[in-house]
């Protein structure tokens, strides 16, 4: 394996690892705002690392240039999307945990085929 292949391997694996870390964060965080934080930041970094790893494997310079554009687009739109999400949640009045522990809104609850409409606890 050439050094380029080894570098690609390292970048791809670390990118995937960061995405997994983001996923674990989404599952473990207590509140919507912290979960968005965990979902967006490691995922952008992980996707960026995967793209850089793919750039090293591209056939010619044109594939690399296209991947640079894709990376720029990702870095521009990913954080903006999570910013828009959190802004919309805040404008709808979603409270963060700790502000008022008994305040729940429907955006926070997901019932999978249950009987109750809103999670009371």
């Amino acid at each position, binding site marked *: 394996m050439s050094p380029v292949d080894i570098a690609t391997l390292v970048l791809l694996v670390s990118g995937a690892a960061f995405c997994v870390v983001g996923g674990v964060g989404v599952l473990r965080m207590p509140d919507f705002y912290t979960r968005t934080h965990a979902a967006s930041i490691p995922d952008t970094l992980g996707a960026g690392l995967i793209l850089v790893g793919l750039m090293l494997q591209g056939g010619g310079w044109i594939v690399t240039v296209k991947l640079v554009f894709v990376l720029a687009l990702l870095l521009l739109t990913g954080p903006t999307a999570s910013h828009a999400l959190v802004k919309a949640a805040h404008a709808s009045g979603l409270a963060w945990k700790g502000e008022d522990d008994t305040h729940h809104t429907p955006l926070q609850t*997901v019932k*999978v*085929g*249950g*009987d109750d409409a809103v999670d009371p606890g």
Partner: protein
Amino acid sequence: MPSIPVELPIFILHLLTALLIARLRGLFSAAMLTGIFSLLSCCLFTLMDAVDVAFTEAAVGAGISTVLILGTLALTDREERQRPARALPFVVVIVTGAALIYGTFDMPPFGAADAPIHMHPVVQTFVHGAEHDFHIPNIVTVILASYRGYDTLGETAVIFTAGVGVLLLLVEGKRAGDPPSEPDHGSDGSDVPRDEAA
């Protein structure tokens, strides 16, 4: 260690996403999951070398369709109404799915060179004609726009009809001269409030 096809995790995710969409009662989450389902389909099509279809699926399914479903959500409830579980739809779905899977056993392996679809002389005509008569590299466009152009005319008419249907169902009482946000004007521009709605 036997090689696992890349499509297998995508199919498993498809299955999980579909089950979740059917079972979730929070409609916002279900709308997002339909977008994810379309994105997984797009990955599958790309793996099968059908880039045109993958492109359309990403743009329409994961893009516009999710926005329109969310727009519908703004007009209705946020949760699905609880309905009693019935056995008949479940049985129908299982039987239909099993029949479809049984039908795929008869199909040739994916990409096999001696599949009937590759042996038919029509295919040779298309491929040969796209290179010599058209000088256009993208055979999909050649087939869509010229060899099967009549079908594409029908598809465009279907899209137009869908737009007309949406117009008839959703736009109520809108006339050419109405200003957009003032529903209480009479049709002659006077300020008399109307009795009936819109």
